[in-house]
C-alpha cells in the first residue's frame, strides 16, 4: 500500500509539470494582456508596469523563473488585485470554498444515497418514480435558476435569511449550501439507485437472503457498500470541483471563494492568479483521485494495490 502511494505521488509530479507548462503558455497566447483596458495606457506607463512584473523578459525566462518560484511555493503577485499575492488570495478564498463545498458534499452524499437506495428498494413503485422525477428535475434545473429563486423566497420575500454576503454562520451558509448541493443530490440519487438495483439482483445478495439474514442486514451490510462504488468514483472529481468553489453560487450569494478568482483571473488576464488557481485545482484533483482509489480498496475487498 505504501509502495503504491509513493508511486502515485511520484507520477503526480510530471502531471503537474505538464499542467503548469500548458497553462502557462496557453494563457499567454490568449489575446490581450493584463494591462489592456478600455482606457489604453500611454506606452511608457505600460512599459513601467511590464517591467515591474517582469513581463518584458523573454517568455522562456519568465517560465523558468516561474517554475523556480513554484518550487519555493510562491505563486507570485496578482497582476490585477495589486494589493495581494496569489498565495494570500488563495489562502483567503480556499477555506471559504472548502467550507461551503464540504457542507454541500455531505448534504448531497447523505441525501442522495438515502433517496437513491430508497428508490431502488421500492423499485417501480410510485415512491420510486416520484423520487426519480424530482431528481431528474433537480439535474435539469441549473444552479443559476435555483439560487436566485431561493434568495427571492427566503431572503427578499420572507426575510428569514440574508440574500448574500459571507460569515461562518448558519444563516449565511444555509442557502448557498442547498443551492450548491441540489443538483448533486439528484445526480447521486440516480447513480445510487441504478447501482443498487444491479447489486440487489446479484448472486451474493441472493445467497445472503438464502442464508436467512434479516433484510436490514442484507441491505446495510452487503448491498450498500458495493452499490456505493460508482458514487465514490463520481465523488472524487466532483469533490475537487465543488471544493474549489462554484463560480455561479459565489456570484449570486457574493461569497468570497476562489471560484470567482478563476474566472475573473482569466478575464483580467491575471496570469499569476490563473496559474495559481490552476495549480491548486490540479493538486486537489490529484489528491482526490488518490483518496478515491484508497476508498475503493476499502469498499471492495477484491481491489488490492500491491
Amino acid at each position, binding site marked *: 500500500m505504501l509502495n503504491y502511494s509513493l508511486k502515485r505521488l511520484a507520477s503526480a509530479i510530471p502531471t503537474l509539470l505538464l499542467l503548469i507548462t500548458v497553462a502557462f503558455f496557453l494563457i499567454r497566447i490568449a489575446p490581450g494582456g493584463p494591462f489592456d483596458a478600455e482606457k*489604453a495606457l500611454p506606452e511608457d506607463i505600460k512599459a513601467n508596469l511590464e517591467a*515591474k512584473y517582469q513581463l518584458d523578459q523573454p517568455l522562456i525566462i519568465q517560465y523558468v523563473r516561474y517554475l523556480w518560484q513554484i518550487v519555493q511555493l510562491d505563486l507570485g503577485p496578482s497582476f490585477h488585485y495589486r494589493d495581494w499575492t496569489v498565495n494570500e488570495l488563495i489562502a483567503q478564498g480556499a477555506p471559504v470554498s472548502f467550507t461551503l463545498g464540504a457542507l454541500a458534499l455531505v448534504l448531497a452524499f447523505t441525501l442522495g444515497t438515502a433517496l437513491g437506495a430508497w428508490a431502488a428498494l421500492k423499485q417501480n413503485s410510485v415512491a420510486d418514480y416520484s423520487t426519480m422525477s424530482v431528481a431528474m428535475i433537480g439535474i435539469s434545473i441549473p444552479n443559476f435558476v435555483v439560487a436566485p429563486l431561493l434568495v427571492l423566497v427566503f431572503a427578499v420575500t420572507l426575510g428569514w435569511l440574508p440574500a448574500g454576503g459571507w460569515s461562518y454562520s448558519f444563516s449565511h451558509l444555509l442557502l448557498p449550501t442547498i443551492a450548491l448541493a441540489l443538483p448533486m443530490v439528484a445526480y447521486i440519487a440516480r447513480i445510487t439507485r441504478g447501482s443498487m438495483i444491479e447489486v440487489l439482483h446479484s448472486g451474493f445478495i441472493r445467497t445472503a437472503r438464502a442464508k436467512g439474514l434479516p433484510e436490514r442486514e442484507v441491505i446495510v451490510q452487503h448491498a450498500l457498500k458495493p452499490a456505493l462504488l460508482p458514487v465514490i468514483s463520481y465523488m472524487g472529481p466532483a469533490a475537487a470541483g465543488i471544493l474549489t468553489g462554484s463560480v455561479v453560487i459565489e456570484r449570486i450569494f457574493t461569497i468570497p471563494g476562489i471560484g470567482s478568482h478563476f474566472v475573473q483571473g482569466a478575464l483580467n488576464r491575471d496570469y499569476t492568479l490563473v496559474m495559481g488557481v490552476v495549480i491548486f485545482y490540479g493538486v486537489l484533483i490529484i489528491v482526490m483521485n488518490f483518496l478515491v482509489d484508497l476508498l475503493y480498496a476499502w469498499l471492495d475487498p477484491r481491489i488490492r494495490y500491491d
Partner: protein
Amino acid sequence: MHRRAQRRISSQTVRWLGLIVVLTMALAATASDRTIHRGLGPEPDSLEIHQAQGLSAFNVLRDIHEGLLTRDSSGQPVAGIALEWHSDQQQRVWTFRLDPEARWSDGSVITADDFVRGWSLALDPARASPTAHWLDPIESFRALEPHVFEVQLNIDTPWFQELLTLPVTFPMAEHPELSSGPFMLEQRVPGSQIQLLANPFFRQADQVWPDQIIWHVTEDPGAELSRFRAGELHITESVPPGRYRWLRQQLGQQLRVSPYLGSFFLGFNLSQPPFADNLELRQALSLAIDRRLLVERVLGSGELPAWRLIPPGLSGWPQSIEAAHANNDQARIERSRRLYQQAGYSAERPLEVELRFNTSLSHRRLAVAVAAMWKQHLGVRTRLVNEEWKVFVTNRRQGRITQIMRGGWIADWSDAGNFLQLFESDSPLNYTFFSDPEFDRLLVQASQASSAQRQSLLYEAEQRLLDQQAIIPLYYYVSRHLVHPDVQGFADNPMDIHLSRWLSLADRTDQNQ
C-alpha cells in the same frame, strides 16, 4: 417551601434575561447604529493611491484619503486639506495653504512634505503607477513651508482643481497605511467587503455622521438588487440592465437615474476600406439610426439620445444636444439613402459590414437594433461579432480586422478635452485612427488658450470630428443607483461621485436625538 424556591428561580431568571436583553441592545446599538452599507461593484484593483485604477477603488479611496481638494455632496470640487489657494495670472503657478488641523489617522500633522512624498512616489517609474500620466501637466512641486505647497504647471490645465481630487494626487504618510480622510480601513476581505471606521483625527470629524461604512463587493448587479431588496444595502452601485420599468414600478423613487459624463458611440476604422475616404457612407450609416427609438425601446433606462460626442452637463459647454435632422425622421432617412447611393452602394450592391462589440447583453441588444435599422433603411448586411473583453480591446487597438466597433468614454474630469483626446492622431486611445491635422492643431491651440477661447476651440474640434463622421454618437450615459429612503445627503451629480462623509440615515438620527 417548594413554591418559594420556584419563585426565587423565576425572579433570578428574569433578572438574567433582563441583563441579556440590555447587553444585546447595547451591543446592537454600538454595532449598527451609524453604519451605512454600500454596494461597491467589483473588487477594487488596489487601495494604494498610486496603484488604483478602477472606479470601485476610487470610491473607497475617496473615503479613506483626502487631497488638496475634495468633492462636496453634489460632486463639485471644494476645499480639502488645502484651506485656500491662489495662482499667478497665467494660472501656471499655484500656491496652496494647508489646514493646520489636518491630521493623519495616528494624530500626526499632515504637512506639505507629505504631498511632496506622495507626488514623487507617483512619478517614480519603478512604482509603475497606472495613473501617473495624469500628472503630465505638472512641471514641478515643492513645500514652501510646512503648510504651504506650491505647484507649477507646464500647460493651461482648466481641470487642475478636479485633478487634485483624484487619488494619484493625495498625500502619503511615512507609514502608507495611515489615512488622511474621514474614514480609515479596518478590515478587508477580498471579494466580500471593506469595512471602514470613522477617523477620529479627521479635521472635520464632528461633521461626519457615519461611524462605520461597509462597502460590499457586488460583482453581479442582480445579486446586488436582491441584497438591496432584502434590506442589506442602503445604496447600490448599479442596477441590472433592462429592468428599468419594473424597478420604477416596484421601488419608485428609490431608483435614482441621473445624467452621467459619459458618451456611447460606434467608431469607424478609418485606416482601411470601406470606411477610409468614404464620408458619404459613414454619414449614411449614422443618419439611418433612430437614436430616440434606441434609448426608449432598446435601452430604456433614461439614457439620452446623442448626436454629438460631448455630453450635456459640462459647465460652459453649448447645450446643443440634438442635430437639426434629429426630429425629422423622414428627411433623415431620405438623406441617408441618398448618401448611401452616392457612396456607391445600392440594393443590388449592398454594403457588407462587421459590427464588433464586447460580450454583453445590452451591447448585443443595441447592435441587433442598429443592424436592423441599417437593413431596413439601406439594405446593409451586418455581421455581428461579439468578443471577449480583452480580445475586443486588443483588436480595437490594433485596427487590423475591425470595421465598426463599440466605443465609449467616461470622463476622468469634466472637461471636453478629456473626450476629444481620444481622436488625436498619436493618441494610444485612438482606435478609429482618425487623423486630421486641423483637429490636432485645434487641440494644441486649445491647450494654450484662455478658458473662454478654449471652449470655442474645443467645440470647433468636436464639430470637425463630427463633420468627418469618425464616429456615430448613439447615447449619453446615465448613472443608476438604488438609494434607501432613509439615506440623506445622496445628491445625483454628473460625475457620479458620492463621498460617504456626506451621508446619513434619517430615522436613526431621530432615534438618537
